[in-house]
């Protein structure tokens, strides 16, 4: 084995043959771990079977060697709360699979996830390796379940289905916001009562022990804290009300959108409730979001709130921009390390993803950058998902090349 290893290494170094590598080492990297380890200079990251096997300041032996030449290696970025693979063209209704009006708590769009969408290779241009897809709207308050997907573009890339329940609350153009909140609380209340009833005689218990419904299973998982509940909400008072619910039932609660989260940052930190926000959302879109600013991410970080960044607006097609949002967050006071975590480790923590950090045992989702990952002048030099190198070339590049090519023939002949 040793002998083969060395020869494979030689071949890899010669760069002439594509060896089916068992192990790969990225050497001479400036490793931004997104862990307590911080930044490790001149380090080697060893990958085996799609996972990070070792991180060392020694040059480790491997079937394939990639020399980072000092460049920055980060965990792959993780998007969230969008509809990647659930929409091809926004205004083409037949290409949209992410929302269901009457979907309710059990709606799981991930079984419709399309790994072959053109949005995926495009998102990889921004170093995105994993994503949490989520229903956007529905009658609510429960609108369905989110799932983690990888951006390999291969069939079977839904990694973790139904990993969180999505709830939409807050301002309502019809009726009162109180109704949504009340429905949310009632649903949890009812299920909580059901599962905490004292056991009665055997016959009755047997009768009760019938298979719980899909909805009950999800509610049970929420009540046991096994599944997070992601709540789209922006007004500070609404969030405070929800913190009471969290405390009552020990929910794993996360706020998304959370425009006015800065107003209650210390309460959020104390309650250990993370937020998923856009770093660019500084306009008062409604009366729930009068306090959001470009410094919100920084202020929340400083207060000790776990912050994950996501793209606002068309977050599926524009997902690749996530690194620029992180850069702007830094520009307005977030630490560079915190901003990196906000697009990697913190997202992983919220959705229980085994990636987002350069640490032993994590999925080998890695990005080698030409320079500072957040800078506009920087590009992705190499990107790996589960240890496998993937391309950043997309349909967009084909179109560019076609129309930049010199030919006497119509462009249609260039492909």
């Amino acid at each position: 084995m040793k002998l083969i290893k060395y020869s494979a290494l030689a071949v890899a170094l010669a760069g002439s043959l594509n060896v089916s590598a068992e192990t790969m080492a990225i050497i001479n990297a400036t490793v931004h771990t997104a862990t307590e380890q911080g930044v490790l200079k001149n380090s080697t990251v060893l990958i085996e079977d799609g996972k990070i096997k070792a991180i060392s300041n020694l040059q480790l032996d491997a079937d394939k060697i990639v020399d980072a030449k000092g460049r920055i290696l980060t965990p792959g970025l993780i998007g969230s709360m969008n509809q990647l693979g659930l929409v091809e063209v926004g205004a083409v209704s037949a290409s949209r699979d992410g929302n269901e009006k009457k979907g309710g708590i059990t709606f799981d769009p991930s079984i419709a996830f399309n790994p072959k969408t053109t949005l995926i290779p495009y998102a990889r241009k921004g170093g995105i390796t994993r994503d949490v897809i989520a229903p956007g709207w529905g009658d609510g308050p429960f609108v369905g379940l989110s799932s983690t997907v990888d951006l390999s573009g291969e069939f079977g890339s839904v990694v973790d289905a139904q990993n969180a329940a999505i709830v939409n609350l807050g301002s309502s153009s019809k009726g009162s916001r109180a109704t949504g909140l009340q429905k949310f609380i009632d649903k949890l209340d009812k299920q909580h009562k059901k599962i905490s009833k004292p056991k009665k005689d055997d016959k009755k218990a047997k009768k009760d022990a019938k298979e719980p419904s899909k909805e009950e299973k999800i509610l049970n998982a929420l009540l046991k804290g096994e599944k997070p509940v992601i709540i789209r909400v922006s007004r500070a008072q609404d969030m405070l009300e929800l913190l009471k619910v969290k405390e009552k039932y020990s929910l794993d609660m996360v706020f998304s959108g959370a425009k006015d989260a800065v107003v209650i940052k210390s309460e959020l930190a104390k309650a250990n409730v993370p937020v998923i926000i856009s770093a660019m959302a500084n306009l008062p879109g409604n009366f729930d979001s009068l306090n959001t600013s470009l410094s919100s991410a920084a202020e929340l970080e400083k207060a000790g709130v776990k912050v994950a960044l996501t793209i606002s607006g068309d977050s599926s097609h524009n997902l690749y921009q996530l690194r620029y949002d992180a850069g702007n967050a830094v520009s307005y006071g977030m630490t560079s390390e915190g901003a990196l975590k906000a697009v990697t480790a913190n997202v992983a923590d919220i959705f229980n993803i085994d990636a987002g950090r350069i640490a032993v045992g994590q999925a080998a989702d890695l990005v080698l950058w030409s320079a500072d990952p957040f800078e506009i002048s920087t590009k992705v030099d190499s990107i790996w998902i589960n240890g496998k190198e993937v391309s950043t070339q997309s349909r967009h590049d084909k179109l560019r090349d076609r129309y930049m090519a010199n030919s006497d023939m119509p462009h249609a002949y260039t492909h």
Partner: protein
Amino acid sequence: MQRFLPSAIVLAMVGAISGCNNSEPQGEKITINKNPYPSTYAAMPRTNVLIQNATVLTGTGERLDDADVLIVDGKIASVGTDLSANGAKVIDAKGKWVTPGIIDVHSHLGAYPNPGVESHQDGNEMTSPNTAYVWVEHSIWPQDPGFNTARAGGITSLQILPGSANLFGGRGVTLKNVPSQTMQGMKFPEAPYGLKMACGENPKRVYGSRKISPSTRMGNMAGYRSAWVEATEYKRAWDKYNADYAAGKAVDAPERDIKLDTLRGVLDGEIMIHNHCYKAEEMAMMIDLSKEFNYHAGTFHHGIEAYKIADLLAENGSCAALWPDWWGFKMEAYDMVQENVAIVDAVKNSCAVVHSDSGTTIQRLNQEAAKVMYRANENGFDISEQHAISWITSNAAKSLGIDDKTGSLESGKQGDVVIWNQNPFSVYAKAEKVFIDGAKVYDRNDKKYQAKSDFMLGQP
């Protein structure tokens, strides 16, 4: 009734003859006031300003290192090294960059303001496919907080356009980005009006769903053509009236129509077309349409497929105002390339512009331009900062017809200037000081120069 008819005809005939009677005295000349809502803009308090030791991008393709910019009486006096001026406020900008004020040619601030409540949906008069009679300036809420956040991003001038639901959406207006309690107080003096037109999916969707024309792209084209036919007749009638009156004839003025006033303004070359149009084949037809009716096709906005017809756009002298990377929200936005602006720009006599169409990205047009520059440079282009800045300054000014007034740091131009904390093509760049007509309108480090809208005042 019958017996009255012949006499009515006689009367009509008499009237027709008397209309041509040269001996009849002329009535008062009917003229149309082309500026009934005039600008009341006046520069804010200002001193003369000397910015020293900066890296200066002039907007004309030049980069000057360690250079000075002198603003006197609100105008660019000179750009060079070792400038001095008595009594000018001196700003040491060592390590900082200076550019012309940033111009966004496509904004809906004030017409679709924040908060985005129902009462504020004033940007799209979706009641007829041709609403050339509306003027978006009549919708503008000057207290939109977005004007202030845009100013913090270096925006000194911007064109507000009506939305794209209609074939003819109405007149756009160019503003100086200063706080005011009236639209007139922001209105850019002597800037030409724009007329918003829209191709493609939006008009045919909005009206097709109501079972009225247009419901197809051919319906769109028929709608434009009918309107221009009508406008041509209207122009002919007024031109004839004016000529006849000048010739001393006693003639009656044509009946006034404010929709046709605007279209006629385009045919007279006074109003510039701003055409929401994504697709190559549609832009090509809009150019032919303009030739059919003898006006200029103006600027194509959004132009996702502009790169497919870059030669044609330059040949026609049309600017293309584009996003760096928005795509996929509609079928007509599917064929985006990140190098679109660069490909359009690479053709001789081109006019590539980066626009926002967004209250969010208008705050970072510098970064939007940077995305294009760097992605293009990774793919065979060699674009410099001093060139790329023109996409959001001088080319934008050209698109709006204000390039004789602003958009570059040339002597005599208005003192619209941004001092950046660093290279504006960095994600970490921030506008530090912004000047409009030589007056400091924003200072990142001095609250005294940070305007706040009435709406935000006293909010919890």
